[in-house]
């Protein structure tokens, strides 16, 4: 469903993603993990048509990400890094915008919007302008937009960060259900313990290069240990002034 061949992204001299090769099968939940600046969001941007690859190729749902960009957009749902919301639209209007652009009927848009607002605990803020929403509400709005048009592939950039535990549980349950129905999910996250519970494939990336790629069953021990071993180990600075009598 998602395929990358030597996919590379350069910003001048800096190589953000270096010859990425991936095969993600239909109905899987792929967790794309790595530290900040490792190239996760850049990869998502290339796969969703937000930026063009410097070299290499990629396909989503059998379509080339450069040549068939418009067709791909009709088949995918995206939760982008910056959420992609308009300050001048309310939560509900964002969903109506999605329904109209994806040419759903007004009745379908209304029904699906109501269901998504309920499922994501957004009903109370449906008439709030995006500019006045909390970060969590904005994230949930963007997630609802990604789901509304019933996509074949979902690209979610850090979907579990900044949302409340109940909604996080709802989202993870939803993702499992979607994958069972054949929808492919490609997500980035920093919450390793949560991802370990529902992902079917794990890809670790470090400085733009894939450090690990396997099914979750093939991960030796815990995902956290693998991450610390292959990507980066935690280093704590002793901030001696914290907790001292000095204010």
């Amino acid at each position: 469903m998602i395929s990358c061949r030597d996919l590379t992204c350069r910003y001048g001299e800096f190589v953000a993603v270096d010859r990425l090769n991936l095969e993600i099968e239909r109905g899987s939940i792929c967790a794309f993990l790595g530290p900040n600046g490792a190239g996760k969001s850049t990869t998502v941007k290339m796969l969703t048509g937000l930026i063009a690859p410097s070299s290499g190729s990629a396909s989503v749902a059998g379509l080339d990400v450069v040549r068939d960009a418009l067709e791909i957009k009709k088949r995918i749902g995206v939760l982008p890094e910056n959420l992609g919301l308009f300050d001048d639209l309310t939560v509900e209007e964002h969903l109506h915008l999605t329904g109209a652009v994806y040419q759903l009927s007004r009745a379908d848009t209304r029904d699906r919007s109501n269901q998504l607002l309920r499922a994501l605990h957004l009903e109370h803020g449906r008439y709030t302008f995006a500019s006045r929403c909390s970060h969590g509400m904005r994230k949930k709005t963007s997630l609802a937009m990604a789901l509304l048009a019933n996509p074949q592939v979902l690209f979610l950039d850090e979907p579990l960060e900044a949302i409340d535990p109940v909604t996080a549980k709802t989202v993870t349950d939803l993702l499992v259900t979607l994958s069972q129905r054949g929808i492919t999910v490609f997500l980035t996250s920093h919450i390793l313990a949560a991802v370990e519970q529902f992902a079917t494939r794990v890809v670790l990336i470090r400085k733009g290069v894939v450090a690990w790629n396997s099914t979750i069953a093939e991960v030796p021990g815990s995902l956290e240990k693998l991450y610390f071993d292959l990507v980066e180990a935690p280093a704590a600075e002793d901030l001696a002034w914290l907790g001292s009598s000095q204010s």
Partner: protein
Amino acid sequence: MVRVLAVLKAVWRAVWRGQGSFLSISTNNFFIFTAYLFRQQGVFLYLIIALLMLFPLSADPLRKIPAERLRLWPLNRREWWILRILSPWVNPMMWLLAAATIWAVRRSVTWQLLGIVAGMFALGFVLSDVGGGAWDGLARRVPGFGGQLRELIRKNLRQMLSTLDLWCALVLSVATTIYRVADRNTPPEGFLLMVLLVMLALSSYAQCLFGLDGEGGLTRYRLLPLHGWQILLAKDAAFLLVAVVLTLALNPLAGLAAALMVLAVGHEQSVKHLKPQIRWRFSSGASLGNGVVQVFTMSIAANGVARTSVLLLVPCAAIYAISLWWYGRTLEVK
């Protein structure tokens, strides 16, 4: 007191940095061309500009600090009151008002004028604190339209409403409409000139159509399964709607012709040279050269439609359609 001074210093820095955003007027077509064409005769136009800028200039300086951050700082009640009393003096408008009061005492300025300016300053100050609800109410009343682009058009109308360009054009339009109703003997040429002034007030916005969308909005545009021309059309539809409504009582067909040309020329800057804009300011034009071409072509188009034939709208629409198609493609490639 040390804490209050620290906060005041931060507010002062933020206010003075913010003053730079008012310089957007210096690259605005309306200001540049009226200053050039009318010089001293354009006093009433400069008064409109000053009047509109007075509102954002009067904003409460304490609004520069997020309310929650301000409440989190360990300030006691006395320090709060000192901050509340001293903070307005960080705003240069307050000093101007104080100077005007002294002039009024010395009879250089009338008390009536001082009262009007002070009243507007107070209104701007209070609105900046409690005006969010009023703006929400107005924004919610913006109607939606049919079709695939309905929500985008609604959003674009709201964005236009948050620029001073539209309010300037509205003041000109309403004032001329009242004049037209009151004096039925005014020659139609006078209204054509006012159509051009209304369009001139809106023209800089046509050079920065994506200026208020922010990074998130621009990302969303790239994710939507829409052609570039459709995204541009949603922008233009809002602009054309405003242009026609504001010239309805003057000469709507001339207004439409002028608006089509302003957009056709403005697409170049809007698509190729994205210039972020700030709400409640005049739009900053992206290019003086583009502004000159906008003014030249809109004058020819409006004059042609008003004086020669309505059929001249056809070539205007054709030029606009070519621009829409071309820059729509450019938008997709970007």
